[in-house]
């Protein structure tokens, strides 16, 4: 990634520290990804993106800014990309998936904060993530206490807008969320200097829906008895979807889906027959967090689905495309986003329904409920998840972990024992 040094310097990044990250990533990616056999050719695109993860997309974003476009950095699947796109803005994910950034976050955050929040804050404050440097404004949301307070710390450093996500799903909460989206549109208009019109928003809704459909096609291919793609590869596609241009993302995912559908016809699989099918559920796996998938897929099992924000929650449910007024469109957006079943809602029975439904759709043998350390809402909800699964006769393993490798051997023993238990 050495060609981008000038760009990183202009972004005010801490080059020396960032170099350390650039040095370890290729080895990690090689060990976890390139060691896999018979990968779909379509994965070449994502391999390339990873090889230039802090270079290629950031340089596109900077180019777009030169042409007057604004970049919105987001943290959560509740922020409606459609509104930003309608005003000719760009949405990008932000760094937060590596232990590399955690010590930076620990300088200012309590130690019992989840690693995702620590890493995000560390990546910003230590100036080692280009996306955090590029974004003109960050859009946060109050989906947990840790994030809420961490955003206050970030807001001292950069412009920040917080969306007030309801924590219950009563009819008035849907209305309130539609109103939040309308307020957000005002912020977007002010940032970009462009009007959000019904025509533009309709177009944006189609763009993001197409991206969702494309991601879903790849996921649907994982329902096949003979798995045409590994869980690790599908996860990588998912993680990068948060950063890529939505139109290109859809195009690449559709191309990959074409190949996977052909593989299914030809009976090509990346796993031996009889490999146990695992679904993971719980907290998000931000790039480059591949730890659990790697452990599972080197323990004689395959990951076939992620019921996570970096998974089905990102693409399930489409926004109604028939609305022609802004009011109707905001309502349609609210309806779609409120269908996401995050543990920040109380009660949250929809998530249990989702898990049971997905377990059937993907024909899973067992489920691993994984929680990032100190994420109290998902950890507590794990009680209901595990109870419901046991009642349904689906084996479940609960795991709590962070970004460090210190528990890798322990986890491996547990996952291997779980796979042995599946028979």
């Amino acid at each position, binding site marked *: 990634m050495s060609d981008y040094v000038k760009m990183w310097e202009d972004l005010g990044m801490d080059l020396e520290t960032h170099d350390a990250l650039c040095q370890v990533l290729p080895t990690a990616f090689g060990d976890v990804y390139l060691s896999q056999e018979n990968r779909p050719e379509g994965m070449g695109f994502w391999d390339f993106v990873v090889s230039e993860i802090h270079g290629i997309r950031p340089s596109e974003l900077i180019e777009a800014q030169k042409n007057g476009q604004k970049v919105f950095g987001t943290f959560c699947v509740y922020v409606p990309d459609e509104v930003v796109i309608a005003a000719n803005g760009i949405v990008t994910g932000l760094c937060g998936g590596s232990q590399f950034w955690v010590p930076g976050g620990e300088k200012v955050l309590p130690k019992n904060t989840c690693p995702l929040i620590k890493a995000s804050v560390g990546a910003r404050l230590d100036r080692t993530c280009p996306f955090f440097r590029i974004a003109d404004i960050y859009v946060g949301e109050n989906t947990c206490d840790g994030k809420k307070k961490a955003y206050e710390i970030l807001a001292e450093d950069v412009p920040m807008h917080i969306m007030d996500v309801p924590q219950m799903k009563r009819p008035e909460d849907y209305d309130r969320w539609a109103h939040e989206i309308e307020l957000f549109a005002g912020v977007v208009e002010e940032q970009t200097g462009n009007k959000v019109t019904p025509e533009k928003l309709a177009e944006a809704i189609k763009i993001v829906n197409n991206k969702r459909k494309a991601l879903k096609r790849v996921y649907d291919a994982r329902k096949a008895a003979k798995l045409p793609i590994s869980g690790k590869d599908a996860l990588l596609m998912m993680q990068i979807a948060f950063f890529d241009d939505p139109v290109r993302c859809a195009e690449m995912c559709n191309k990959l889906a074409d190949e996977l559908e052909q593989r299914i016809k030809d009976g090509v699989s990346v796993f031996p027959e009889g490999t146990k099918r695992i679904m993971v559920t719980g907290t998000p796996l931000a790039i480059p967090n591949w730890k659990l998938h790697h452990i599972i897929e080197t323990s004689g099992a395959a990951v076939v689905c992620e019921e996570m924000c970096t998974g089905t929650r990102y693409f399930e449910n489409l926004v109604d495309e028939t609305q022609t007024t802004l009011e109707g469109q905001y309502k349609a957006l609210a309806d779609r986003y409120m269908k996401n079943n995050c543990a920040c809602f109380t009660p949250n029975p929809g998530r249990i329904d989702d898990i049971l439904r997905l377990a059937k759709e993907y024909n899973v043998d067992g489920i691993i409920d994984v929680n990032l350390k100190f994420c109290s809402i998902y950890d507590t909800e794990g009680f209901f998840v595990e109870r419901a699964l046991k009642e349904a006769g689906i084996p479940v393993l609960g795991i*709590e972990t962070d970004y460090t490798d210190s*528990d890798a051997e*322990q986890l491996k*023993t*547990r996952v291997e*024992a779980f796979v*042995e*238990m599946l028979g």
Partner: protein
Amino acid sequence: MYYIGIDIGSTSAKTAVLDENKNIVELFSQPTGWSSVDTAESIGRTLREKGYMVEDGGVVSTGYGRVAVPFSNKTVTEITCHAKGASLVFGMEDLMVIDIGGQDTKAILVEGGLVRDFVMNDKCSAGTGRFLEVMANTLAMRPDELCTLAKHGGNTSISSLCTVFAESEVISLIGRGEKKENIAFGVVDSIVRKVASQARRLQIGDRQVVLTGGLCECDYICDALSKELNTRVITHKKGRYAGAIGAALSGM
């Protein structure tokens, strides 16, 4: 034909040899030491001296050093092995196995001789043999001596779950002149409470609870655990070999 199971744990390495009728014909153990590979080689030599040809196959390894056994034909996790081994040793197909190992503690629900569900401590060493070892060391005793002494103590509790903090707690108890047996009581009580809270996450029901692993040779731990779980916890003199026996069974 003989079936050999090798369980390389963090503290000691156990070996079991079974004949084809599942009779246990050989059991021996040794400290794991600092090198699992050396330990595995030493086990190989001992087996050969005793007339078992490890190269003929039928060797299954388990435990955290399971990958370090060069002549092993298969590796199986200690959870599966303890379930199988305990079923054979205790002669029961439905039971709840609690294994207090050197660096991890597991509670395993066994149904029909197979693992139905399990919980394992995370990377923290609270409630493990290691915790006991560290505290015994601080009290200048052997772990088994500490266990025996604990029976005569009482009225002391160690509140820190973290081994490092608990050690400072023990040191301040020593400084305050607390009786050794009372400190020993506090140490064992801490382990037992932690293990019991882990076990209670599984539905014990009316299953027989059995204790395996290194600490099962201490009667007092068994008694204290029975009291805490409100059910009789039994053990067996071959209990510490359950993992190795289960490994040998996995090769059949």
